[in-house]
């Protein structure tokens, strides 16, 4: 196993609103222990709770590091911390009710880490440009949401969304969730308190974490993003980087000379936008032509400059969001906005062409960075559109009579978050948590329950060589052209290869499946390309193993590993498909119940009408007829 270097940095900030900092953190490189704790209780000693828990966890891990298995060690350390905080709270009346969350990472070795958490402090994993949340918040709303008792919309607006269902200190025992993950070169782990993700968007976190800066800079940028977003809470972040930096030195070049080159061509950008007829866009109707150029094009140029300089997408994101909100508020069409973005894209490309014409080798890197910035703008506009659609849907729901949420279907355990999935599958065995409650949580919220735990030992060097050769052959066999289908097949082979090599068993297959699945329409047209790619990848991969020029024993082992990896990956993808259908089933059930309610009401009214008609007829019959004989 190649040795992976590790870079770590952590920082904390009081925020813009709070007077004191109730967060605490642990950064012990020697022990490999990193943790973020977020104290609660305000005047009742939130800071005392987090500091106490921090000290107990640190001391416990230090004293038992060699004596206990990592997963058990973390669960026990958190349990000890909970007992200590509980005792402290019990001993002093003014500290009654204090508690703390914790998310802790223990590096088992250079390739494995154990993540344990209680409460709503989170751990994220950035791998190959994708950000994955490794922990599931222990809040009442999150648990209700997972059980299907409330809708995501209700959850987002719930007044109780920050109320924790678990913490350290309210009971002597803790119920930590413990996950073991396999690390790869280039991975980044982020531990943070809710002061970060509550005030900085997921996109901002993704951009900053994946931007190629070192952990020290990323930590600072993340805190700054949270402060810019309001900074309503204490914010603490720890960033761990495994092996090589996620992005090569090109980022540094873009940040320095790239940004400067871009800014130097601002007049050219404005001129290109002017020539393309930006001022004539309906969006600029209320502005004079020069104002339109200066405000619409000039602001984008500046936003791109700042994003290049900071390696983020925040400025362009904000620009596009404001533009879209302003336009949609006026009742504007998406089509017009789309045309405007195309004009701005054209102006950007004019700048890139100018840089390239000057023989500047920077142009290619800059083109990628600017294209990325424009994609960020489009994603932001799409986000605004989606938000508005959600708001309209919520309005429609409010306008219809309220009904009780349907109970979760009997016997259908919620297919839950990725974090639980990793817990179940990465561990190689069922979670061995000390607290009974933790075990129960796992059972209730299992994900991909059929992904049975299988521990796969690392392959021998000879088998590893076979696997490597099979991977290369399989990819060569599917061809080198860059059509999307081919790329997807190659991607599947790569991921299956890694899963076949992984010493911790199914973790990589499950994670790979999640990454491959990405965001897809739950329709045949959305799923078929992925399923086809997986099929082709498996066929090419096993053929390559079969045709290897190696010893038969090694070939058999390689075949077993490759077959298992593909089977698990396809199984996990299928599980995700099933999981995605859950909300659709729930909504249908909701709609059916609502229809039944309406139908019953119509029936009752019908009966009432018949009764009234009957009475009216009787009254008419009893009334003396005009002109009739007395």
């Amino acid at each position, binding site marked *: 196993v190649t040795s992976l270097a590790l870079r770590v940095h952590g920082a904390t900030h009081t925020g813009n609103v709070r007077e004191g900092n109730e967060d605490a953190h642990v950064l012990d490189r020697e022990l490999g222990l990193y943790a973020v704790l977020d104290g609660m209780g305000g005047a009742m000693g939130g800071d005392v709770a987090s500091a106490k828990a921090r000290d107990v966890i640190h001391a416990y891990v230090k004293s038992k590091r060699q004596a206990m298995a990592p997963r058990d060690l973390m669960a026990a350390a958190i349990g000890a911390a909970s007992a200590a905080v509980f005792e402290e709270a019990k001993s002093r009346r003014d500290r009654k009710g204090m508690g703390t969350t914790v998310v802790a990472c223990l590096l088992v070795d250079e390739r494995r880490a154990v993540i344990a958490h209680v409460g709503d402090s989170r751990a994220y994993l950035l791998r190959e440009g994708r950000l994955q949340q490794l922990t599931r918040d222990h809040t009442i709303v999150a648990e209700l949401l997972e059980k299907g008792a409330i809708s995501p919309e209700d959850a987002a607006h719930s007044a109780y969304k920050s109320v924790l269902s678990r913490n350290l200190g309210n009971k002597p025992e803790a119920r930590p969730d413990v996950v073991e993950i396999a690390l790869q070169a280039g991975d980044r782990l982020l531990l943070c308190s809710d002061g970060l993700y509550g005030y900085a968007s997921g996109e901002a976190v993704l951009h900053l974490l994946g931007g190629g800066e070192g952990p020290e800079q990323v930590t600072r940028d993340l805190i700054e993003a949270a402060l810019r977003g309001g900074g309503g809470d204490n914010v603490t972040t720890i960033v761990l980087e495994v092996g090589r930096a996620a992005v090569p030195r090109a980022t540094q070049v873009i940040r320095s000379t790239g940004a400067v080159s871009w800014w130097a061509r601002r007049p050219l950008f404005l001129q290109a936008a002017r020539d393309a007829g930006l001022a004539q866009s309906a969006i600029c109707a209320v502005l004079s032509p020069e104002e339109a150029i200066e405000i619409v094009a000039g602001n984008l140029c500046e936003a791109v400059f700042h994003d290049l300089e900071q390696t983020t997408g925040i400025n362009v994101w904000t620009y596009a969001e404001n533009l879209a909100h302003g336009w949609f508020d006026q009742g504007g069409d998406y089509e017009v906005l789309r045309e405007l973005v195309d004009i701005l894209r054209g102006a950007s490309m004019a700048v890139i062409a100018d840089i390239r014409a000057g023989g500047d080798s920077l142009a290619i890197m800059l083109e990628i960075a600017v294209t990325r910035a424009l994609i960020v703008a489009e994603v932001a506009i799409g986000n605004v559109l989606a938000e508005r659609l959600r708001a309209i849907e919520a309005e429609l729901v409010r306008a*219809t009579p309220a009904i009780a949420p349907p109970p979760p279907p009997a016997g*259908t355990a919620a*297919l839950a978050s990725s974090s639980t999935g990793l817990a179940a599958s990465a561990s190689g065995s069922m979670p061995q948590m000390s607290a009974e409650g933790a075990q129960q949580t796992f059972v209730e919220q299992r994900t991909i*329950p*059929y*992904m*049975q735990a*299988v521990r796969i030992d690392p392959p021998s060097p000879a088998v590893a060589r076979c696997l490597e050769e099979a991977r290369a052959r399989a990819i060569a066999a599917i061809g080198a052209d860059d059509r999307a289908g081919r790329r997807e097949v190659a991607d599947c082979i790569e991921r299956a290869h890694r899963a076949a090599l992984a010493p911790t068993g199914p973790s990589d297959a499950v994670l790979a499946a999640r990454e491959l699945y990405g965001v897809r329409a*739950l*329709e*045949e047209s959305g*799923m078929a390309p992925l*399923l086809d790619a*997986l*099929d082709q990848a*498996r*066929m090419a991969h*096993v053929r390559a*193993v*079969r045709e290897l020029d190696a010893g*038969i*024993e090694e*070939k*058999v082992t390689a*075949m*077993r590993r490759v*077959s*298992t990896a*593909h*089977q*698990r990956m*396809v*199984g996990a*993808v*299928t*599980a995700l*498909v*099933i999981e*995605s*259908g859950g909300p*659709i*089933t729930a*909504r*249908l059930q909701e*709609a*059916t119940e*609502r*229809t039944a309610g*309406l*139908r019953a*009401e*119509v029936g009752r*009214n*019908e009966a*009432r*009408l018949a009764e*009234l*008609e009957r009475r*009216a007829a009787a009254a008419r019959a009893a009334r003396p007829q005009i002109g009739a004989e007395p």
Partner: protein
Amino acid sequence: MSTTLADRLAVLRDEVLETVEHGDGEPPGAEVFDAMVRAVASHGETIPGLDLALHDAIARRLAWGDREEAVLASTEAVFQRLLKASQRAFRDPVEEMLVAELAAEVACGAARIVALAAVGRAGRERAARLREELAQRRLKDALAQQREDLARLEKA
């Protein structure tokens, strides 16, 4: 050779499906195991592809009320147990390699069938929801009319 191998594979049925634990009932995953035996028996004679018998069997299980998760779970279990059993039972590594390859093919095929069934179900449920919403609209119109009538009659 293929037929012999298929026969020897079929012998592992009780072990792989844990038949004893299921008494008289058909053990879960039997259709997957049978498809694996068929795949070994017909290896080299047909083009590998979708096994219609497997498709039918899974569709039947789903139609009888087995959940998609359960079908997938049994597929996974059968695949894992077959790999273990074949490692122990087959002396010829070439045969073992062939079984692993074909078992993966069948297991992946079964997963694909389940995935497409889930996609189909989602589509049907979406359409059913639309129908429910249309019915709700008509019922709401009827309710509005009834309320008017009720008000009129009660006033009279």
